Each structure stands twice: as C-alpha cells, then as structure tokens.
C-alpha cells in the first residue's frame, strides 16, 4: 500500500503522497492488487497461508472494507489459516477511529509507527503526528481489543540525546507492547535526510553516542522481559513476528503491490528461488498487472553463491543464528565447508560464536554485524 499523507524525509520506500486518498484511487489500486494476486498465485500453488502483512506506505489509510476485501481475496486464493495478520498503522486520529473495524475485518496484530514519544524528536524526523496521538492510538488499539501490538521506535534521530532515547523507552514500556522494533535511523542516499547528511547539514549523534543508545535499548528492553531476537527486533516471549521471520529464514513470500518484492519458492529450474521486484511507480506497476504478464517486474535468479551468502547474513541477524543443519540441508555441506577461513577469523576476533548446531553473533558482532556479514560474500 504505497500511499502516505506526507512523505517522511528519511523514507526510501516506494510511496505516493495522497492527501487525502480518494475513494476512486483506493478502489482502483485495490482492483489492481487483486488482479495481481490472481495472476501471481500460481507460482505459490500448493502452499498454505502462514501470515499476512499489510505494510506500506500507510495501509491504515484504507477503509476497513478495503482491508476486508484484500484479506478476503488472499484467503480465497490460498488454503490455511494465517498465524498472524498484521496491519501497519500510523498514529493519526483519522485512522484510530477505524481500529475496531480493522479488527472485525480480520486484522489480529497492529504495528504502530510511533517512532518516538517526544514531540521534538517527531518534528525533527519530519513526522506528521505528535506524542499525544501516539498515546491515543496505542490506547485505541487496546480498546479495540488488539492483544498483539508492536511499536516502532527510531533512535539516533537528528539532535536526539541518550536521555531522550531512555525516555522514549520508558514511555513505550509503560504500554507493555508485545513487540518492539527499534531502528537506528539510516540515511538512505537520495532522500532529503541522505542528501543533507552528505552535505554535512544533518546533526546526528556521534558514533559513540549512537553505540550507547543501541546498548541502552538492549539493556532496558531485556531487563523489561523482552528478547532481542533480531538486530532491531524485541519481543515478549511468544510474540516474535511470524511474518518477518520468513525474510530472515528465506522462506517464500508473495509480495503484492507497487514496489513489493516477492521471494518465489525454489523450483527445479531455480533451486535457490527467484526474487521479483515490482515497479516502484504506480503507472508501470498497474500497466504490468493489466497486461497480465507481470511485465515491468525485475526478476533476479539467485545463484548458489548469493543464496549461501544471504542464508548466512540473514540468519545471523537473528538471535537463534544460523542453523547449521538447515544450511547443510540446502547447500550440501555445513557453513564451515564454504567459509572455514572466515569463521576462524571471526571467532578469533570475538565477533562470532560457533556452536555445533548454530552460528551466532556475539554482542560485539551485533554492533559490527555488517563487517561480519561482508566476510561471507
């Protein structure tokens, strides 16, 4: 769902500014989405639904019956009961009013894009909402009966201090969300923030400070009973995200919509699967779907080498780490067979732990994870 009321200055998703989202645009987009679903379902034939994730953009801009229509179409296309059906919600008054209807439509998990509980931070991030709306939305989620709510927070925002990060954590923990995603702000080239940073115009916390923030996040959340099960993901027991796990374990995902990316299941012709990326603009996306041939999508055939590297760096993002047996099952030999030199060096440097059944990052390795991952490419 690519529509957003305003575009955040750090965002590099494929998004369209829609203020407001007209009913015509909404239904036209939905038509395309459903058409794409039917065209693409064949590639996932014989599979059961594991999870549904309505992300964006701002899918909570949709009317409840639109959400119902999408979910109905998906459930009609595949057998199985999804373990998790998530909707991304933006904390603005317009949408909180719809929360009860979303639940009726079949949503059972909310991912709330809070980002911060501090008005100054929210303004510096260029967000449209304020802290009061975050509070109100979270309460509305609970009031609407959502028992599984995730909060997104951003740390190392421009001008943010460690004390402010701590305050955000305290505020977030007060609601005892089932799940928290805490992202260090990343500056993507081409975005207004990225460009400002490239010209040295963005005041960001220094490296030491950012490290302290990330350490503080981990310490506070773990003390409060959350498990850091992925570099940026924290969950109370039993509440890890079912959907996100699929990316880190490289399980098939059917991505629908403008700019969406799919991981098609492996086939005899493509033993390591395909990655399909839809066009990042509305017109070519819609035209591709209308033409019925998915034209415009970029297809990447993964080779063994890429697949191995991805298997390692995606799994190492998680607390469970890389399952040696699973890896050997897919690639014919355990990781050590392919990466002996790298493993020796990384374990010697204290970045990686090598147990008989799994490879895991050490705390230091998590802070330097990209350096670790690069070794496997």
């Amino acid at each position, binding site marked *: 769902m690519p529509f957003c009321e305003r575009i955040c200055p750090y965002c590099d*998703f494929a998004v369209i500014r829609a203020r407001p989202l007209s009913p015509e645009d909404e239904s036209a987009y939905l038509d395309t989405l459903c058409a794409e679903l039917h065209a693409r379902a064949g590639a996932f034939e014989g599979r059961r639904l594991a999870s549904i994730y309505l992300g964006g953009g701002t899918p909570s801009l949709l009317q409840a019956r639109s959400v119902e229509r999408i979910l109905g179409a998906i459930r009609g296309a595949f057998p199985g009961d999804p373990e998790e059906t998530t909707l991304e919600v933006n904390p603005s008054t317009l949408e909180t009013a719809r929360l009860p209807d979303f639940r009726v439509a079949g949503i059972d998990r909310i991912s709330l894009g809070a980002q911060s509980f501090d008005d100054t931070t929210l303004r510096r991030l260029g967000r449209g909402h304020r802290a009061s709306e975050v509070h109100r939305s979270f309460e509305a989620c609970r009031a609407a009966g959502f028992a599984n709510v995730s909060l997104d927070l951003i740390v190392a925002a421009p001008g943010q201090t460690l004390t402010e990060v701590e305050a955000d954590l305290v505020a977030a923990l007060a609601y005892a969300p089932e799940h928290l995603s805490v*992202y*260090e702000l990343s500056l993507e080239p081409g975005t207004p923030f990225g460009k400002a940073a490239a010209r040295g115009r963005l005041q960001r916390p220094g490296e030491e400070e950012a490290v302290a923030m990330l350490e503080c996040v981990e310490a506070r959340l773990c003390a409060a009973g959350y498990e850091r099960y992925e*570099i940026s993901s924290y969950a109370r027991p039993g509440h890890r995200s079912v959907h996100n796990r699929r*990316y880190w374990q490289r399980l098939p995902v059917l991505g629908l919509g403008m700019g969406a*990316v799919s991981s098609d299941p492996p086939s005899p012709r493509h033993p390591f699967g395909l990655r399909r990326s839809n066009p990042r603009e509305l017109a070519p996306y819609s035209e591709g779907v209308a033409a019925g041939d998915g034209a415009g999508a970029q297809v990447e055939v993964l080779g063994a080498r890429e697949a191995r590297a*991805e298997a390692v*760096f995606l799994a190492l993002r998680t607390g469970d780490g890389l399952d040696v047996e699973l890896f050997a099952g897919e690639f014919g030999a355990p990781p050590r067979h392919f990466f002996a030199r790298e493993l020796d060096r990384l374990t010697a440097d204290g970045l990686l732990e090598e147990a008989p059944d799994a490879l895991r990052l050490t705390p230091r390795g998590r802070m*330097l994870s990209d350096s670790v991952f690069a070794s496997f*490419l």
Partner: protein
Amino acid sequence: MAGDPRIRNFCIVAHIDHGKSTLADRLLEATGTLSDRERRDQFLDKMDLERERGITIKAQTARMPYRAQDGEEYLLNLIDTPGHVDFSYEVSRALQACEGAVLVVDAAQGIEAQTLANAYLAIDAGLEILPVVNKIDLPAADPDRVAQEIEDVVGLDAADVLSVSAKDGRGIDALLERIVAVVPPPRGNPAAELRALIFDSWFDSYVGAVMLVRVVDGSVTAGQRIRMMARGTDREVQELHVLDPHPRKVDCLAAGEVGVVVAGVKTLAEVRVGDTLTDFRQPASEALPGFEDVKPMVFTGLYPVLAENYENLKTALEKLKLNDASLSYEPETSAALGFGFRCGFLGFLHSEIVQERLEREYDLDLIATAPTVRYRVVEKNGRVAEIESPAALPDAADLDRIEEPVILATIHLPPEFVGPVIKLCQERRGTQRDMNHHGSRVQLRYELPLSEVVLDFHDRLKGATRGYGSLDYELQGYRQADLVKLDVMVNADPVDALSLIVHRDKSHQRGTDLARKLKEFIPRQMYEVAIQAAIGTRVIARTTVKALRKNVTAKCYGGDITRKRKLLEKQKEGKRRMKRVGSVEIPQEAFLAALRLDDS
C-alpha cells in the same frame, strides 16, 4: 644498392604535448589512409590509458600511400612517438626504423627539454631532421621566433622550418612534399641476406609474441624459416602484416618496409626487442646494432594483493615486458607483502603506467611500494653494494656510508618564475650550477639528488611555473649523503614495505607526515591500530586509528535483501583490495602514502 626509392620511413618527435599525435591524424587524413568514419582525435593513441591521460605512451606505426606532386606514388611509413621523458626509449627504438624525423615544436612554447633531447637522439641515429613549427593557429604563436630558436639552439637552418597547424590543417600538404623530398629512401640492401630489426613487440593471446620489424636488408616472406640472431632460435613465418593503419595481411616485406611478423612464438623470452631476424638457411653474418640497454632510474616493489596471484603477476610482467622493453624486474620478498617483484622504471610516470597496465590488461590487483632510487652502500668491512629497496639497507652499525645518485637537471622556464623554481630546488637539496638566458627563456641547471626528483618534482615544477617549466636530466654520478632508514610499525608489527630512505635532516618531518598520512589511509578496523614511525629503535612519531565501534544495518526485509547484499559485496570488494599485515587491513593506497607527503 639502395632500397626502394619510393619508400620514406620517418618518425615524429617532440616535447610532450607539442602536437605529434594530432599532426599524425592530419597526415593520415591528407593521404586518405583514414576514412572519415574512422576519424577521431589522436587516432594512433590506441590505449585507453593514453586517451584518458591525453598523452602518448607507446610509439605507433602507420603506413600511408601518397601520390606526390611529381606524380609518383610513394609509401610513407610514419611512427608517432611519445614526448614524455619517461618513454624516451620508445623514441630511440623508433629512430632505428627510420631515415628521417619530423621535429615538431610548439609555436607558442618554443624549444623545450625534450625537443632538444629528441633532436640529439635523431642526430646521433644519423637521421635527416625536418623541423616543423606547429600550432601556428594559436593567438600566442610566434613561428618566426621559434624558427630562429631552432636555428640557434638545434643548429638547423631557420629557412627550412615549416609552419603548420595540426588543428586546422595548414601546411600539411607542404609537409608531405617535404618528407618525400628530404627524407632519404631506406638505407639497406634488398639483395643481401635478410636482416630485420625487431623494434617493438607485443603479446597476442591467439598467436603468441608478435614482432614489429623494420626490414633493413633482403626481404621476408610468409612461410620462410627465420632465425632470431641473439638466441639462435628458428621459427617459421606464419603471417606478415602491414599497418595501414589497421593490420593487413601481406605475403612479403621488402627491404625498407615496416611490418608485423607472426611466427608462432609462445616462449616469451625468445623475443627480444633490438634483436635481428635473418634467414635460417642463409643467415646474415652480423646482426644489426640493436639498442642500448636502458638504465632504470626508479624502483618500486610490486606485489599481488592476493598471494595466489603471484604467478599471474609473473606472467603479466613477462608479457608486458615484450611490449615495454624499458621495464625491468626481479623477484623480491617482503615480510609484510609476501612474494613480489622489484621493478625498475625510467621514471615515476613510467612506474604508474606500468602498474595501471598490469591492473587493467591483466586484471590484477597490485600493491606498489613507494618509489626509490638505486643507492650505493659502503659497509665498514669495505663491501660495496647497490640497493634498490630500503629493506636491503644493511644495519646502520655496519654502514660506513651511503651514496645516492645525483642528476644534472636542466630546467627551461620563463624568467618570471625563476624565484619559486630556485626555492623548489633548494628544498630538494639542490646545488645551482648555472643560469643562462636564451631569448625569452631562462635555462637553469641544478645538481639534485635523484631521489628528490622522482616523486613529484615535475608536478611541483609545473605548478611553480604555471605549466611553462620543463625539465630534462642526466645522471651525474653518486655522492655521499647523510641518509637514514625510516621504518613504520603498525600495531608493533614492522611493515618493511613502508620503509623509506630519507635524508637525516628531513627524517623527523617525514616520519610525522607519514604517520599522519597512514592514519588517513587506514580505515577504522575492529581494533585500534597504532602507527609508529621509527629510525632504528627510536620512535619519532606515533598516532592511532580508533577502533570501528558500529557498522550495522537497522532494517533488512524483503525489498532490501538484494540491495543489502550488493552493499555488503561492495564492502567486501573494498577489503579484497587490502593487505592484511598482522591483524591490520592496509589498503593498497597506503603503501604509496609516502608519495602524498607534500600535499599537506
């Protein structure tokens, strides 16, 4: 008996940038050798490197038919040569294949160091010289003054100087006529036993080593069995080509002609530039004189970034040597860098070009150490040795003295820049010999240690004279100097490849600068990196590269995975080009940090 009266072999020589290659373009066009479609500036500069840098590195041959005003059809063979002093070996070889030389002088700049040097080379080779003033279209052009200068300095009659513009084509027809009139037909005897001079060669992956020859006596035909006189090896000629300017197969190359000989030579060492080809059955009794050996002036260590590429580097050097006879090399081992080669070059630009050619043409990642000159060391026990690398310097305690090569530098420049140039020479430990005024130019002569000139003296001279200064030099001999070895330690591991030999008075400054530069080049790593510069056991400078604390991507979901993987690949690629010394990753460029010391 003389050679074919309708052949003219000539080369174009000049100072750098005076317009040789552009003039060659006009000649190729005027004779109809190049079609309009093929036209491009400096057509004969074929290497990417030449086009990127706008200079000629390799001499190139082209053969042109030309109908002269006397109604006769002539065959002109042109060799465009490089102007930079580092490639002067290309010039001296080309001269041996010619009877004439077109000496080009820029109408605005007048005579420069390499104008003279190349003119003398041509005179020594017994060539007829055709002086040409080029770029007369320039507003600052002063052809009469420059013609007079040619008469005064080179001793050629000013009245014989032709004025041309390689830009707008003025004077080109007259030049062609003059070439026919003045350049003698080929010397040599068509009836004698075959003697052909190999004056260039290159490696072709299909047919092996290929030779570019000038047939002096007799003729060579396809299928003929030939002998390479130096080695005494025999081969059968598989193919012959002329370059007009594209390779075109022919059956025979007669006396006076220039062309390519393909003879299935796979053993690279068999072919030596300067050698003579003769007939296997009726060999000539004496080989042609060949070329003088070149004396390398500058030395650097070249190492593969990946140790397993050592053999590839070795083969690459062998192949490149075929095409660049002025390159020399021998195996060398470094504690930090492993197995590599100490290579000798004619100058710093030459060393840069060789490195780039190795990396591009042979797909190698290399580490080069800072250039040094050849020192003479005298030990207390009386032993004398010549060393080309700091690592080879004996222990200070055993040393009686070190002598360094000293050059006599001749610098031409406009008078207004004399002050800054004298200052530059003094900074470089120079001693003034004399200063003379030639018309509007000043000639400064300085004795300078070669080591102070090899790195960036040229650039600094250009900077100090807004591009108008030029430098030529010759080796004077060796002179004792108070030199010391500056060592570098990275996390307490000595890195032999970073050692330098420097003058004691400059050692402290150099050590401090070097440590600081290395800090800039060495990226932050997982652990703190301590950099120290030392003379003997005395540390004279230290600095640290702080540890990398954080390198983490916050988000990684479906849409990002490919992009993230590519980013990581890039990161890895960057690492691949680094050398691990002890526990520290040192990037390629860091080994040349010493070159950048004067930037600050």
